Structure formats: structure tokens, C-alpha cells
């Protein structure tokens, strides 16, 4: 077939046959790092995704390219995915009673009710 390709890689290089074998070895694409970015100074770092990198330093470089090329970003953290310790997703139910702990919430204490009751009582006594 005549090659009308506009791609200089096709026109000028002697590319190996499409049928030839190229194997990428396991681990050749390096390790996975989790990426956390900070939108402005003082804000929390937020998880935004992952990159593959051979070292933490390069993970930072790749993370900047991947997650810091648009919008505001002032800082990035990376951490090896294997170093993240997390609860099993299945154990979600251990957080279930959080919402019942009204004694941990401001809304769990009804001071106005008590004040109003006291004031009403005072008025009656007069």
C-alpha cells in the first residue's frame, strides 16, 4: 500500500512492522504515587489522582504536569500508593452511628429553650 501518511515518524523513520513484537516488561512503567494538590496557601491539600513515576522527585514533576497545568495550584504532595493505609471499604458501617452522637454537636444543646422557660417562669412569679 502506498504510504501517504502525513506523519513524519512514518515517512522518515524505518518503523518496525506492525506485526512485530514489542513487549513492555512488568514494572517498566514504574510505581504509582497518589497526588494531593493545594489550590491556595492555607487550604488543605486535596487528593486529585495518581501518577506513575520511578522516584518521589519525578512523581512531583509528573504530578505538576498532570494536575497543575490549569487553574490555581500553589503546592503538590505525592506519596507512594503502597504507603497509604486505609480502612477496608467494607467496614464502612463502623462510622454509622456518628450522626447519633448529638452530644458532640452544637445542635445537641438547646440553651434557648432553657432560657425561655426560665424567663417565662420568672414572669409568672411576678
Amino acid at each position, binding site marked *: 500500500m502506498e504510504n501517504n501518511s502525513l*506523519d513524519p515518524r*512514518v515517512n522518515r523513520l524505518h518503523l518496525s512492522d506492525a506485526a512485530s*513484537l514489542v513487549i513492555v516488561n512488568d514494572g517498566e*512503567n514504574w510505581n*504509582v504515587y497518589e497526588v494531593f494538590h493545594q489550590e491556595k496557601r492555607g487550604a488543605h491539600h486535596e487528593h486529585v489522582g495518581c501518577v506513575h513515576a520511578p522516584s*518521589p522527585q519525578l512523581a512531583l514533576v509528573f504530578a505538576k504536569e498532570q494536575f497543575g497545568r490549569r487553574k490555581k495550584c500553589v503546592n503538590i504532595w505525592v506519596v507512594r500508593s503502597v504507603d497509604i493505609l486505609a480502612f477496608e471499604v467494607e467496614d464502612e458501617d463502623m462510622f454509622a452511628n456518628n450522626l447519633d452522637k448529638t452530644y458532640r454537636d452544637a445542635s445537641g444543646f438547646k440553651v434557648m429553650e432553657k432560657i425561655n422557660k426560665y424567663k417565662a417562669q420568672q414572669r409568672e412569679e411576678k
Partner: protein
Amino acid sequence: MYGGGYIFDEPNRRQLKDEQQHDDPEKLLEFEARITSGAKIEPGDWMPVEYRRQLTRLIEQHAHSEVMGALPEGTWITRAPGFKRKLALIAKVQDEVGHGQLLYNAAETLGKRRETMINDLLSGKSKYSNVFNYPAETWADVTVIGFLIDAAAIVNQVANAKGSYGPYCRALERICYEESFHLKQGHDAFIELATGTKMQRDMVQDALNRWWQPIMHFFGPPDKNSVHSEKLMQWKVKMASNDDMRNQFLDAYVPKIWELGMTLPDANLQKNSEGRWGYSDPDWDLFFKVINGDGPCNSERIKVRKWAEESGRWVRQALMNSANAKVLPVA
């Protein structure tokens, strides 16, 4: 850009039926109830074998499409007319490759290694969107790709972003945000030609004529021929049928082409009284022929991808040897 509606499946998929039957029926019920309630599935969750397999294929093919889609466009960076168009095209191509990375990561959470996915792409075992097996012959082709193929991809990706698998949805959210720039710059470049000189208008008309069929192919075969859609839709792997997505695309974009006085090479293309678009069936035999390797550019694309993999290997290996220095905790 470029997840199409069609997910290639190997013909021997029935072999997995036995394995599928081993899914714990109780867990399956719980899983389906969770999806129906609108909750997301996360990597550590129990999931049916078939859900994992279909999602892996879907996300992997989407990732390959992003990377392969950058090849015909990347070729045009040096030829793009003017500095602003070059900058925009460089940014777009970088985005597409970045989308590939995001999607490979999402696919990896399902257990398939990235190296295996790349090997499957290079050997032809896994597929990518058919549209990239066609040549981008002129600058007008690049504007048609940037405008219409990105638009088609957005229809599909916006739908998929509401799917059930958390990592895929999160990747798509970011992708859709960046795609809106791709679509806008494509539309802008398209309009510039379509409102330009006669020669420019002829060029863009010619590109439309050549790309219309691949674009109609983009969402995959008609619903009446779709085999395994029902379960995938219940599991929210597939969010809309091929015909529905195609209709949505035609509804939004055909008027934008017609308003510029451009035509599309299908005399039967029109909206009926119920709001559905009618069109001539594109050549579906050709569609399958191209998927199976016989398109105008299949061999060229794989060759270039292999060359990139081989030529980049020394860089990956050189970096690999750097010692991981100990660092202080960040916080």
C-alpha cells in the same frame, strides 16, 4: 477525548459464563441494590466478575483511544496555521495523553497492570476508537476532529461520568472539564474556515464529507444489534444506548453545521416530528472491518505507538536506577 459508545468484546466471551455464575447471589443482590440507590462502587468493594471484566475493557479501551487519538492530531502541530492554533493544539494533545494516564490509573484499580494494557494494545488484542484509524489529511480535518469528534466524545463521557464506578467517574469529571476547551477551540477553528474564503469553505466541506461516516460509526452499532447492553445499563457501566447518544449528538451539532451553510453527505438526515433524527445507516460492515485491523491507518498507528514504546525505553530504564533518597515527613 474519545470514548466511543462501542466496547469491543472478544468473540469467545461466553467462556466466562461459568465464572460469572460463581458470583455469590447474596452479594450480587447487595451490589445491585447499592447501584440502584445511586451509590458508587469503589476498588475495594465486592463486584461481579463480569462487572470487573466489562469495566476493565471499557476504561482500558477509552485510555488507548486517548493516546492513539493524539497521533493524528500531534502530526499537525508543526503545520497548524498560526502561533495561537499551534499552542492550542499542543495543549490539547498534552491533555489527551494526560487523559490516557488518568484512565490507565482508573483501569489499574480493577486489577489489570498498566504494562499488560500497553502490551495488549501493541499486539492488537485491545482496541481503541475506530475514528483514529482514518487519516487527518488537511487542516480542515483537524478542525472537524476537534469540533465534532470531541463533541461526540463529550456526549458519551458526560453520560459515563454518572456511572457506578467511582475511579472512572472521578477521572471523567476532570476529562470533561478539559474537553470543553477542546470542543471550543475546535469549533472556533471550524468556524474560521467555514466563514472564510471559498477555498477554505471547500476544504472544510470536503473534510466533513470524508469524516461523516466515521462520526456516525462513533457511537457504535444500532441498538437493535446490541447484544449485552441490558445488564451493563442496569449496572451503570453503560449509561445510554448507542442510538440515544447518537441522537443526542445529532440534535446538538447538526444545526451548528447547517447554520454555517455547510452540508452533510446524507440526504436522509432530518429530524422527524417526534424529535428523533433519521439518517441512512452507515456501512456497518466497514466499521467491523476497520476494528479488526483493516482501516486505512491501523497499521501506521500501531507502528508509531511501538516506535514510541521502544524509543522511550532507555529513558524509562535510566530513570529507574535513581536511588530513592529518604525524605522528611511533610506534615
